[in-house]
């Protein structure tokens, strides 16, 4: 086969692939057989590159397996085939070294282009800092309309209840099971959003398939990534780097809103944050019932994954039910371990950095007065004093 013929063949293959890929513009719900096209230039490029490589592999497979299968039928001893004696040909060896090499170069060109595009986070319109925690994400808006807004995004309650061992809940009835969060990240459409991705503990990886990239969240590193979404919508993904017990339970949800909607959301989120901060820092003395109600929620989203909803713990995570610390007359030790983390066991994180004084007081109160525990309640000012 001459090089020109080969070139023609490769070009034909490429163009037929492009025709095929462009005619399949299906939507972004989970496709059961193939990579999704997604909603960004990067993801569409990844998809078409994926299809090109796939079809090249299919073509090579047809040739190689075809020859093999033909030989398996035509060159059988039972059909009287007598073995030929050839066992070497430099010409053939050179040919099947050079042809794959040319195919690879043809592949490397679009791959390089896409890679350069993905890695170029310059000229972004806004920046969101993404921090991985065991086992939730934190999002902090560094600039723009929502500047200063910061919140945690963890598995939503419906999924969290259903995923408990033998919960008895039919998970196929839970909406977006394991793919929904309590607080989604919200970004504006039509803007280049830059993400600064890092981690507070172990390595996580932030992935939204519809955006076409994943990037590891590594303690001590700040990785950069970006996206530019045109279509408003809700885009779901998951943590993709094994990060401990609940690796399978820390989804990523991003809602893209049109700019006007986004501004409204940002304003609402800001005032909500202000109100929460004011409540937390006020000198108000809270009643036990108020603290217990609030504490139950905080416990569910921050503590139950390890210490379990029934407070009995699991594996390396100790029980709180009947624990000496949680039932001691003085709450000081209990407040210390929750606010500052455990000195001896790194699995117990310092929640002082994640929760405000009110939430901490509420959850500590909850832990001291649930599952048969009966001990003093804790006020936000006690937590403040312990920080």
């Amino acid at each position, binding site marked *: 086969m001459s090089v020109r013929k080969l070139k023609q063949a490769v070009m034909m293959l490429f163009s037929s692939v492009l025709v095929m890929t462009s005619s399949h513009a299906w939507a972004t719900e989970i496709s059961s057989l193939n990579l999704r096209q997604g909603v960004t230039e990067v993801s569409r490029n990844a998809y078409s590159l994926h299809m090109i490589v796939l079809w090249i592999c299919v073509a090579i*497979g047809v040739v190689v397996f075809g020859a*093999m299968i033909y030989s398996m039928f035509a060159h059988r001893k039972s059909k009287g085939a007598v073995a030929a004696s050839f066992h070497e040909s430099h010409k053939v*060896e050179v040919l099947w070294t050079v042809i794959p090499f040319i195919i690879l170069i043809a592949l490397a060109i679009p791959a390089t282009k896409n*890679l350069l595009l993905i890695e170029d986070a310059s000229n972004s319109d806004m920046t969101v800092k993404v921090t991985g925690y065991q086992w939730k994400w934190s999002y902090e808006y560094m600039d723009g309309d929502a500047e200063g807004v910061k919140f945690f995004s963890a598995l939503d309650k419906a999924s969290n209840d259903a995923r408990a061992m033998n919960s008895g809940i039919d998970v196929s009835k839970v909406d977006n099971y394991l793919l929904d969060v309590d607080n989604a990240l919200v970004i504006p459409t039509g803007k280049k959003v830059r993400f600064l991705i890092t981690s507070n*503990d172990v390595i996580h*990886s932030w992935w939204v398939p519809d955006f076409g990239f*994943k990037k590891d969240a*590594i303690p*001590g590193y700040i990785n950069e990534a970006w996206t530019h979404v045109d279509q408003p919508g809700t885009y779901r993904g998951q943590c993709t780097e094994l990060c401990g017990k609940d690796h399978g339970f820390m989804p990523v949800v991003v809602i893209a809103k049109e700019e006007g909607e986004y501004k409204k959301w940002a304003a609402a989120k800001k005032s909500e944050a202000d109100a929460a901060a004011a409540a937390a820092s006020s000198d108000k003395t809270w009643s036990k019932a108020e603290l217990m109600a609030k504490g139950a929620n905080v416990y569910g989203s921050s503590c139950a994954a390890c210490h379990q909803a029934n407070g009995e713990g699991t594996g*390396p995570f100790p029980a709180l039910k009947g624990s000496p610390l949680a039932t001691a007359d003085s709450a000081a030790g209990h407040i210390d371990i929750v606010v500052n983390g455990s000195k001896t066991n790194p699995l117990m994180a310092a929640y002082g950095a994640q929760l405000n004084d009110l939430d901490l007081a509420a959850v500590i109160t909850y832990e001291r007065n649930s599952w048969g525990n009966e001990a003093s309640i804790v006020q936000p000012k006690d937590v403040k004093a312990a920080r």
Partner: protein
Amino acid sequence: MSTAHAEHEHHGAPSGLSRWLFTTNHKDIGTLYLWFALAMLFIGGSFAMVIRLELIQPGMQWVDPDFFNSMTTMHGLIMVFGAIMPAFVGLANWLVPMMIGAPDMALPRMNNWSFWILPFAGTMLLSTMFMEGGGPNFGWTFYAPLSTTFAPASTDFFIFAVHMLGFSSIMGSINIIATIMNMRAPGMTLMKMPLFVWTWLITAFLLIAVMPVLAGAVTMMLTDRNFGTSFFDAAGGGDPVLFQHVFWFFGHPEVYIMILPAFGVVSQIIPTFARKRLFGYSSMVYATASIAFLSFIVWAHHMFTVGMPVAGELFFLYATVLIAVPTGVKVFNWVATMWQGSLTFELPMKWALAFVILFTIGGFSGLMLGIAPVDFQYHDTYFVVAHFHYVLVTGALFSIIAAVYYWLPKWTGHMYSESLGNWHFWTSVIFVNITFFPQHFLGLAGMPRRVPDYNAAFADFNFMSSIGAFGFGLAQLLFLALIIKCIKGGEKATDQVWEGAEGLEWEIPSPAPYHTFAEAPEVK
């Protein structure tokens, strides 16, 4: 004096337990390695059954997530270090001396030691599962800081087990290199060696090069965990990404350590049943050496998502896809060997052909994964799981099974049961594809790996995959039955065993006598 000498010349295998404990005979040690690998295959396989049981339907039903993580971790470690690697060393022990016309391995006492470290290392590794806080639960790649600061106490035992496995591998490799370089029969020049010997020679160099790197990585983990260093702890000025670079500098050559001997096995089997010489012998040797060289400069393709500079990503992308060239050459050569041969399809050939087709599928997905901008989508999803099980199960493991079928008559002196073997082959091939092919789709649809639970959208393919896994697991019991039956008896095997078999190991009696080639054969 003369009687003692005569006894020494002609003694057979000693009997009892001490035969196996103190043996320096390459065939006995090969047998020990192979039985150890088979035992580990079943233990590691049972962990896979637990994984697939939990994943058979969405929701958490059987094991808690922490235990699930320790199952995925131990499954990987046991299969890589306990099953595949020792099986290939066992094959090398049995076959390398017989293929090059040597009476035994060059360093027989060290050979004994390299094997007997393994059961202790394996037991120590498995014992972690019963320790307080649970066994290692950070994946077989044990990325820091999950494996250092955040790991269970049993991790220190895991570290020592890895050290011991490393000693064993390094000693085994030195022995293989020493044997091949020094003990070839007169006339057995390097370029006349059977390909299995060639691939093992190159593999042994890879092992000596990278096992110390692994030892370094786990030693740094050990001091990070116990002696206050911060090699991998960002809070102390260390670097978690350094761990990944060191690990994969070991890890990538490691995956070729598990596949190069497989290439060797298949290159022995296909010519035999095609009754035609291997096509492109010298290009096979050069392709093996090229793959070995390239394996050292592609490691960071496992880390495309860690945030490397774009120049680094481009380098690792180009170097990675380049591996397709020598690997392609190998596959083309096997097909050309079959072409216009006189083919028969005894069981070793069936397994070898399944290897060629299914390993190539694993190679295709490997090429796809090498394309960095798309790897950002595939990375750490079930697509990767599908890929490496195609190369390691239908690649490495299938070649080991093919080798057992091919040489079992030589080892035992009996032919295996054809019908049992056919059942084993067809059930394995069908179920293995039901297990792993749907995992491509799961990964493309977005299911991450190493998760104990998933959205109902992934339910159908997971169900299929679990059914396939149970079937494949059960099918391996047929393999065990076949081996035991073949050892106990069966149709007497001829010396040549296979009509088209060529090579020194087929010129000695079946079963191979306890001592062979006391006098070196002449190779023309």
